[in-house]
C-alpha cells in the first residue's frame, strides 16, 4: 500500500516517491455530444506521481486512459479538477515532455531518421551528437538500415518503434506513453522494456504509460494504477515491490503472479 499524500485533502496516493513530480487532483472529463448527450470519460482521478517514478496504467478499453494521459500532457483540458506538475498548474503543453501516442503518428513525408529527429528540430537541438543518438536509438529498437525509408514502407510494429525513438531522442522529464509496445512481439517487447528501464535509470525521467498487458505493467512499474470502467476513476493502486534493475526471472516469481492476480481482480478478470 502507498503512503497518503499529506498535502492533499482528497485521498490521493503518492506513486511511490519522496519528492512529488506531478499531482492530479480530482481530474474529470466530460465530452459533450450533440443533442445534450455527453460521455463521462474521467471522474475524480486523484494521485501524485513521484519524481523519477514509473507508473503503469491499466484499465478497460474505452475507460478514459488516453484521455487522462492527454490531460496530463495538456493536449486536452479537464472538465474539472487540476493537474500540477513541478508545482505549476497545467493548462497546455509544457517543456520537457515526451508523448508516445496510441497511433504511431509519423510524418509520411519524412524518412525514419528525420521523424526521429523531429523533436530535436523543433527544440533547435540537432547536432552531430544528437543525430548520432537518434541513430543509436534506431539501432537499439532494431531498425538499423531503415533510417532512410519512409513510414509507409514499414510494418506496424516498426512504425511504433520509430515513434518510441522519437520520444526518447531528447531528454524529457516526463514521458507519457499510450500503449507504446502494443504492436510488438514478445521478444521485442522485452527488449523495449529493458531499454526503457535503462533509460529511466540513466536519466531519472518520470514515466506514465498505458498498457493492456498486466505483466508488462508489473514488470516495469513502481506502481500500477488500475482504472475502473468508464467513467474511469482509480480502482486500485498496486505498489510493485521488486527492486530495480529488474530481471526477467522475476516474471516467474510467486510474488509476480500474486501481483498479476491482484491486478486481474481489479480489472474484473476471474482467474
Amino acid at each position, binding site marked *: 500500500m502507498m503512503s497518503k499524500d499529506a498535502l492533499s485533502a482528497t485521498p490521493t496516493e503518492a506513486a511511490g516517491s519522496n519528492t512529488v513530480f506531478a499531482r492530479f487532483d480530482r481530474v474529470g472529463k466530460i465530452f459533450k455530444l450533440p443533442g445534450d448527450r455527453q460521455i463521462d470519460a474521467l471522474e475524480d482521478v486523484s494521485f501524485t506521481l513521484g519524481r523519477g517514478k514509473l507508473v503503469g496504467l491499466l484499465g478497460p478499453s474505452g475507460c478514459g486512459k488516453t484521455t487522462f494521459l492527454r490531460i496530463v500532457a495538456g*493536449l486536452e483540458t479537464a472538465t474539472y479538477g487540476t493537474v500540477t506538475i513541478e508545482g505549476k498548474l497545467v493548462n497546455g503543453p509544457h517543456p520537457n515532455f515526451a508523448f508516445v501516442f496510441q497511433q504511431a503518428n509519423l510524418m*509520411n*513525408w519524412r524518412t525514419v531518421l528525420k521523424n526521429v529527429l523531429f523533436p530535436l528540430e523543433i527544440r533547435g537541438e540537432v547536432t552531430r551528437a544528437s543525430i548520432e543518438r537518434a541513430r543509436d536509438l534506431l539501432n537499439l529498437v532494431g531498425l538499423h538500415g531503415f533510417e532512410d525509408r519512409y513510414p509507409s514502407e514499414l510494418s506496424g510494429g516498426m512504425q511504433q518503434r520509430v515513434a518510441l525513438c522519437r520520444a526518447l531522442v531528447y531528454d524529457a522529464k516526463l514521458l507519457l506513453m499510450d500503449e507504446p509496445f502494443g504492436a510488438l512481439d514478445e521478444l521485442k517487447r522485452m527488449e523495449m522494456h529493458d531499454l526503457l528501464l535503462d533509460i529511466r535509470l540513466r536519466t531519472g525521467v518520470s514515466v506514465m504509460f498505458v498498457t493492456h498487458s498486466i505483466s508488462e505493467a508489473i514488470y516495469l512499474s513502481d506502481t500500477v494504477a488500475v482504472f475502473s470502467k468508464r467513467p474511469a476513476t482509480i480502482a486500485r493502486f498496486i505498489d510493485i515491490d521488486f527492486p530495480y534493475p529488474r530481471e526477467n526471472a522475476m516474471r516467474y516469481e510467486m510474488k509476480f503472479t500474486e501481483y498479476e492476480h491482484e491486478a486481474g481482480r481489479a480489472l474484473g478478470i476471474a482467474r
Partner: protein
Amino acid sequence: MILDRVFRAIYPLIGLALILAAWQAYTQFFAVNRIILPSPMDVLVASNDNFGLLLRHLWPTLLECVLGFMLAMAIGVPVAVAVANSQILNLTLYPVLIAMQSVPKVAVAPIILVWFGLGIESKLAIAFLVAFFPVVVDTATGLRATPKGLLELAQSLRASPLQVFWKVQFPSALPFVFAGAKVAVTLTVIGAVIGEFVGSNEGLGNLLLTANSQLNSPLAWAALVWLSLLGMGLFGAVALAERIAMPWAKNGGH
C-alpha cells in the same frame, strides 16, 4: 522508370494531337470561314511566319505570369495560414477575398491603372488578383486537413506557430498547395492577358488584340495557341516541382 518517362512524354502529345485533329476536321468539314476559326494549318503557317514576333511578345507575358504567380503564392499562402488557423480571420477575411475574386478584373481595370500605372505592375496586379483565390482556398483546405495527431505532436513539443506551419501543416498540405498552384498558374496566363488588354504595349495578349483588330485571325489564333502552350509549360513546371518536392508520394504526378 525509363518507360515511365517515355509515357510521360508520349501521352500528352497524344492529347495535343487529338485537339489538333478535331480542330482540323471541324474547319475542313464545315468549311469554316478563316475569320471565325482558321484551320490549324493556317495557324501553323501564321505562327511560323511570325515566329520572331510571337517570341518577342512571349517574354513579357511569361514574365508577368511567373511574377504574378510568385506573388499569388507569396501572399496567398500566408493568407491561407491566417484563414485556416483563425475562425475569426476566416469569417472576416473571406468576404474581402471573394469580393476580390468575383469582381470582373476588366471592370476594375481603370482603378488598377490609376494605382499601378501602365507598366508591368498593373499586369502583375491583375495576374495576382486572378491567381490568388485558388491558392488561398486550396491551401487553407489542405492546412485544415492536417492530421490532428501530428498537430498534437507538435503541440506537445511546444513548437512555435511558425514551426507548426513549416514542419507540419505545410508539408502535410503540400498536395493541396500544389493543386492550388496548378490552378493558379494557369490562371495567371489569363490574368496577364487581361492585364495586357487593359493597358500594355507588348505581350501575347497585346498581340492577340492587335491581330484581332486587324481581323488577322490566323495570327490571333497563333497567339492563342502560344498562350495555351505557355499555360501548359507553366503547369508542367509546377507539376515537376511537385514531383521533386514530394518524393514520398510515389505516384504523385499531377
